[in-house]
């Protein structure tokens, strides 16, 4: 029995405990844990790439009562994303918090959040998903409240209340599933699931809960204030990772577990809400006065794109076209995570330098921080979906799927969304040009600027040029249940 899947969870969890015991060493523990987790995930990636899905049952107890951890390629791809983003944001955070009190509060919760996220990605039964979802939510709320000000705490409270309602809805769905099928293990469920009212009710309940957590329109209202008022590394993690977790669960449920029980028309609702999210989020990002608020609304819009994939994936018959579209969905999620985290880290740098993040007045700061401005530009390119970023290839495949399934009405939405994204990205970048002397000093603060730059480079160059590797890894056997069918 392979014990490797345990480590991505245990390392951050153990480190969180250590950070509570030794608060002054928090930063060291955090970065060390991040590196170790990344290494372990790398090993897991190699294993899954060569041998397929890896399984580990905790304590040797069989699923049913015991907890099984399953690492398939979708989970591992997201694990890699999470480890990289968390490492970069964590490294950034070592320089961000000037107040020692904040530092000692930050690290334990940060590591706990990471442990919860990894546990969710590796979970193989529905109840475990609920528990890890709650853990993730609670730690995210605590991190969001670290900003300290009244606005941050109010936003965090709203996030908490709304998130709890969502989790309870999810739990109710889990209850219905157990009532009908008598098991919660996903592989076992996949074998027996039927298209019938019990399944639909469960799916509806769980989806409602997840829609709240993934901030899909119209349940998105909690996101912009929470992400905008949190400290920069927290915003990065919230937008890039926490919200993605909910989308991951949607993928698991709609495209994996419940796939044979679905009615294709129901996916159209998700797509429609996604389309509205794209337009509404982009519009508000265009009008935003503050950089971090712009980034938060941009997250709402970008998640909308991910939801537009759902009706397309449900409508496509199994085969290479569907695999390509699925790979595109994963690629877009990955690119967004890296680009958005880079954007938030860069925005944090700017805010620290200028004392504010009002876009209109950022000109001088942008010129004084050329590396950060370059990071903003790279991240912006990935957010708009311009080549050579991974998002461009994902967008191409999205449009291609829309044409292939005859659902061409998504095309104008995606086009309009991209153009509006270009509008708000270049609105910010336009301020980087101005009269004045050239800048003599290139790098202002390596610890804060380099992680953001690396994240942006991954989003724009690595995922763009190496996208074929993502497709090769994810498309075949990505889903738990496909291995079985």
């Amino acid at each position, binding site marked *: 029995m392979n014990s490797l899947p345990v480590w991505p969870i245990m390392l951050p969890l153990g480190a969180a405990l250590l950070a509570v015991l030794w608060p002054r060493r928090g930063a060291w523990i955090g970065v060390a844990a991040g590196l170790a987790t990344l290494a372990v995930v790398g090993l897991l990636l190699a294993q899954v790439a060569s041998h397929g899905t890896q399984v580990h049952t905790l304590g040797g107890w069989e699923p049913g009562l015991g907890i099984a951890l399953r690492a398939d390629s979708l989970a591992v791809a997201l694990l890699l994303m999470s480890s990289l983003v968390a490492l970069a944001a964590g490294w950034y955070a070592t320089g961000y918090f000037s107040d020692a009190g904040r530092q000692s509060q930050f690290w334990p919760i940060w590591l706990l959040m990471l442990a919860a996220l990894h546990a969710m990605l590796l979970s193989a039964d529905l*109840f475990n998903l609920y528990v890890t979802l709650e853990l993730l939510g609670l730690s995210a709320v605590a991190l969001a409240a670290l900003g300290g000000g009244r606005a941050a705490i109010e936003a965090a409270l709203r996030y908490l209340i709304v998130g709890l309602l969502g989790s309870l809805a999810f739990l109710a769905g889990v*209850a219905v599933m157990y009532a009908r099928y008598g098991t919660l293990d996903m592989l076992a469920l996949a074998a027996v699931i039927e298209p019938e009212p019990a399944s639909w009710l469960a799916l509806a309940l769980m989806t409602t809960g997840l829609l709240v957590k993934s901030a899909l329109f119209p349940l998105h209202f909690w996101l912009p204030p929470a992400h905008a008022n949190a400290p920069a590394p927290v915003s990065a993690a919230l937008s890039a990772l926490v919200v993605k977790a909910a989308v991951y669960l949607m993928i698991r449920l709609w495209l994996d577990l419940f796939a044979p029980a679905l009615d294709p028309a129901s996916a159209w609702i998700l797509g429609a809400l996604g389309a509205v999210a794209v337009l509404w989020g982009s519009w508000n990002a265009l009008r935003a006065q503050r950089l971090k608020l712009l980034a938060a609304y941009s997250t709402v819009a970008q998640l909308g794109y991910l939801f537009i994939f759902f009706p397309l994936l449900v409508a496509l018959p199994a085969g290479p076209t569907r695999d390509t579209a699925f790979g595109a969905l994963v690629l877009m999620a990955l690119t967004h995570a890296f680009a958005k985290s880079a954007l938030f880290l860069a925005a944090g740098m700017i805010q620290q330098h200028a004392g504010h993040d009002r876009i209109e007045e950022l000109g001088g700061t942008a010129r004084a921080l050329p590396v950060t401005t370059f990071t903003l530009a790279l991240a912006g390119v990935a957010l708009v979906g311009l080549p050579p970023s991974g998002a461009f290839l994902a967008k191409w495949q999205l449009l291609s799927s829309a044409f292939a399934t005859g659902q061409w009405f998504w095309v104008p939405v995606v086009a309009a969304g991209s153009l509006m994204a270009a509008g708000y990205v270049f609105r910010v970048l336009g301020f980087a040009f101005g009269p004045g002397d050239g800048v003599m000093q290139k790098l202002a603060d390596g610890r804060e600027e380099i992680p953001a730059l690396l994240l942006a480079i991954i989003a724009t160059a690595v995922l763009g040029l190496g996208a074929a590797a993502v497709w090769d890894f994810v498309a075949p056997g990505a889903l738990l249940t496909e291995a079985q069918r």
Partner: protein
Amino acid sequence: MLFAEITYALTGVGLFSLGLRGTLLRRSLLGRIIAINVCGAGVFMLFVAIAYRGPGQAPDALPHALVLTGIVVAVSATALALALGRRLRESKHE
């Protein structure tokens, strides 16, 4: 399904709805927190109802375990909410 089972299940649904209504409509934070706990209680009732296997038989242990886990999670969440609420009240007095 037996009468008891149905009663528990319906109570659970009823509590869930009441709690939902309370969370959305109440103004005070404390009221909302209590309402969410009511919501949670409703879901736990559902699980308890599911655990029933018939007269004279031992109930299914798994849903009970799930309920216990759920209670722990609910308590932690409530604690966090109360702590944040207190912080909020303190900041109002600054």
